[in-house]
């Protein structure tokens, strides 16, 4: 039988570091079912029959965040054989708060007292024996960073499996009286080991605990809670939290000697005093952000991606085509392999170099502790838009490429803020959209730089507006969690952890998003290469052209619905946005096409009015991003259903904005009033309503509750 050990602890307590030491290289990374919280699992090093499951970093087993719910459901329902509770020894009191709850669940637990190197350096004496006795479980000193104490930890945890694990922690006699009453009331309804856990959670009025219990019992419990509140003159949750901290305070006072009581200023404190100070905080933030932008988007990252894309497009694909041609493979099959499959795979791996560079930088920011400070510095600006201070980073990264932009929203703790960020980042023009801007600016606006600048402004406005709108859509994005965030001590990042996290993220993209991108690219390639009789034809006669022709009317109110080419180019933009220009090149019969499409500026200049061209640009900038970015959004939202909603939202917003722009510009320019202006006014009113109304999405809630 396989022994299962859960790893639990506060964020920043060293869980990742210890997990890597405990499992070596045998790890499986995925998501917990139904949520986008990472689940990691691995074999315990040197033991074939033991498996470690890494629970999310949490401060408490409350029923609020997905991380907390996952952890408690796992401990309670999946019944692991033992728990390793990582405790940051430099921050005992708060870390032990979680410990008190874990112990109550009644699973054999070993405490790994981490960061002992720091403790020793700061001359703090911790009496582990006393601590162990007070908590009623084994306590092993470790320094995860150097691997010290890890084998002792493994031995200890293997030795407690199967032992009796009643919590020895006792609170004030008054509270214990109510605990006994509660335990008595539910004797037989829950397992004996977990009785204390249920009793305390009921006394705390935990919202989730009742699910497993009968209504009768809950009514009885409520009367006990009410009498406790009366007796102790405090709210239930306050009573329990205070009692927990009181017990912890006593334990820590007994077993820890901080030396001379005066607070010593640590290196971390000194760094923080400068890094987030009133005057230097913003300049330092700006410098760090510029550094990321410069390295990943201006130089190294983009060089890598350009090189790989060129290599695939100019070397691999022609070579494969030649080779297949010589081997006598039929044209359509060679097309499928080269343009469909290799091109599709290329679209996925082409992103990798820049992505890895970005991830590397972001992981370093996270590991060293600066990421939390980003939230601290930028919170004030972003929170009114339903975003986290950390949303700044995805938006910045999104200027280079939306895919890592979306993926970097992972570091945002709040689920609501994370989701909103992930679905709005792609409003920012990424580098692949720049050729479309150059095309329109060149064809219709005398290459004015204002076109590009205005697109960035519209993109940012879209992010902020969407934040305001989406945060009200609670049935979709959830309710934001309170912003009460630890500012962890600064640490020197560990090379192994940094490299590993970077590669893990890159791989996650290739694996998860890869299949989808590949299929989607192959489909569009297929539609644009064949006609309905499955003959290979030019794009102009393909199925896609017919599809474009039959749906182009959608864009009539936006001014570019008369010619099907614009619809088709928009669709091929889903493969990769730079394809839009290439598609025009093919459709308008240009022999060669440069990046900004100079060759077809004349044609487009004749087909579109400037305002129609601008509307086309607005729509193409902000509508559904490329398949790769959609795949990344799916990873952050968790389900295809939510991803569909997000893409629909993006398309609707871009359509509405382009519509309003075009119809009003049409009137202002003196081209006359089109009937569609009615639609534009209605859409504008709807937008204002969504932005200003308090609960515009309640209709969805109503539909749901009726169903």
């Amino acid at each position, binding site marked *: 039988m396989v022994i299962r050990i859960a790893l639990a602890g506060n964020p920043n307590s060293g869980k990742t570091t210890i997990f890597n030491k405990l499992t070596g290289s045998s790890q499986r990374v995925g998501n917990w079912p139904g949520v986008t919280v990472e689940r990691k699992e691995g074999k315990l090093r040197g033991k074939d029959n033991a498996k470690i499951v890494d629970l999310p970093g949490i*401060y*408490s087993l*409350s029923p*609020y965040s997905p991380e907390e719910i996952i952890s408690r459901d796992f401990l309670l329902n999946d019944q692991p054989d033992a728990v390793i509770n990582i405790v940051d020894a*430099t*921050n*005992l*009191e*708060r870390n032990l*708060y979680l410990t008190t709850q874990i112990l109550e669940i009644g699973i054999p637990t070993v405490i790994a007292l981490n960061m002992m190197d720091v403790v020793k350096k700061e001359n703090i004496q911790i009496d582990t024996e006393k601590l162990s006795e007070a908590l009623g479980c084994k306590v092993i000193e470790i320094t995860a960073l150097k691997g010290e104490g890890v084998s002792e930890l493994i031995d200890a945890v293997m030795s407690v499996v199967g032992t009796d694990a009643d919590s020895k922690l006792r609170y004030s006699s008054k509270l214990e009286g109510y605990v006994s009453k509660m335990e008595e009331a539910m004797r037989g309804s829950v397992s004996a080991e977990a009785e204390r856990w249920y009793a305390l959670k009921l006394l705390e009025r935990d919202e989730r605990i009742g699910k497993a219990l009968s209504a009768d019992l809950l009514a009885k419990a409520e009367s006990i809670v009410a009498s406790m509140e009366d007796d102790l003159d405090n709210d239930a*949750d*306050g009573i329990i*939290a*205070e009692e927990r*901290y009181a017990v912890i305070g006593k334990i820590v006072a007994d077993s820890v000697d901080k030396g001379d009581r005066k607070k010593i200023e640590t290196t971390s404190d000194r760094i*923080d005093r400068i890094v*987030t*100070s*009133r*005057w230097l*905080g*913003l300049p330092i*933030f700006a410098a760090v952000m510029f550094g990321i932008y410069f390295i990943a988007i201006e130089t190294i990252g983009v060089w890598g991606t350009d090189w790989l894309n060129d290599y695939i497009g100019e070397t691999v694909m022609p070579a494969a085509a030649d080779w297949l041609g010589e081997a006598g493979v039929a044209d359509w099959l060679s097309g499928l392999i080269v343009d469909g499959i290799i091109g599709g795979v290329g679209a996925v791996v082409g992103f990798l170099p820049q992505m890895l560079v970005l991830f590397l930088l972001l992981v370093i920011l996270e590991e060293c502790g600066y990421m*939390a400070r980003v*939230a*601290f*510095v*930028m*919170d*004030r*600006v972003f*929170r009114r838009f339903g975003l986290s201070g950390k949303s700044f980073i995805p938006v910045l990264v999104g200027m280079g490429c939306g895919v890592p932009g979306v993926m970097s929203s992972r570091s945002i703790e709040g689920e609501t803020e994370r989701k909103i960020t992930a679905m709005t980042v792609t409003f920012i023009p990424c580098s692949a959209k720049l050729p479309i801007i150059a095309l329109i600016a060149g064809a219709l606006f005398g290459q004015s730089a204002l076109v590009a600048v205005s697109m960035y402004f519209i993109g940012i406005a879209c992010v902020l507006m969407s934040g305001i709108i989406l945060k009200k859509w609670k049935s979709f994005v959830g309710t934001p*969690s*309170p*912003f*009460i*965030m*630890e*500012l*962890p*001590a600064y640490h020197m990042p560990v090379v192994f952890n940094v490299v590993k996290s970077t590669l893990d993220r890159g791989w996650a993209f290739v694996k998860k998003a890869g299949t989808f991108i590949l299929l989607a690219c192959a489909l569009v390639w297929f539609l644009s290469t064949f006609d309905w009789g499955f003959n290979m034809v030019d794009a102009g006669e393909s199925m896609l052209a017919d599809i474009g022709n039959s749906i182009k009317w959608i864009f009539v109110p936006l001014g570019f619905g008369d010619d099907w080419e614009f619809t088709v180019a928009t669709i091929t933009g889903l493969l990769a946005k730079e394809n839009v220009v290439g598609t025009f090149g093919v459709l308008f019969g240009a022999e060669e096409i440069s990046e900004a499409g100079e060759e077809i500026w004349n044609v487009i200049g004749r087909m579109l009015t400037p305002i129609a061209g601008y509307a086309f640009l607005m729509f193409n900038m902000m509508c559904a991003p490329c398949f790769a970015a959609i795949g990344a959004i799916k990873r952050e939202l968790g389900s295809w259903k939510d991803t569909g909603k997000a893409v629909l939202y993006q398309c609707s917003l871009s359509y509405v904005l382009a519509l309003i722009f075009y119809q009003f510009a049409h009137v202002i320019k003196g081209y006359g009033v089109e009937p569609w202006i009615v639609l534009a006014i209605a859409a504008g009113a709807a937008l204002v309503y969504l932005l200003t109304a308090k609960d515009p999405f309640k209709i969805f809630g109503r539909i749901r509750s009726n169903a």
Partner: protein
Amino acid sequence: MKTLKDIKPSETATVVKIYGEGRLRRRIMEMGITKGCEIEVVKVAPLGDPIELTLRGYDLTIRKADAEQIEVE
């Protein structure tokens, strides 16, 4: 009533009572802000909100609006 919001940087205060409700209140207490706990306000963020606190030997950040729910003396 004096709340944590009124405390100036590098001053220390003792928690008297936590107001508010539900998730926010629970979260405040879980992070160690409970009755009798000593809290130092370390600094205010460069843009004026949130604030940084030190309590129980670690650093925490909280918005002023939420700090207003914490009565201190």
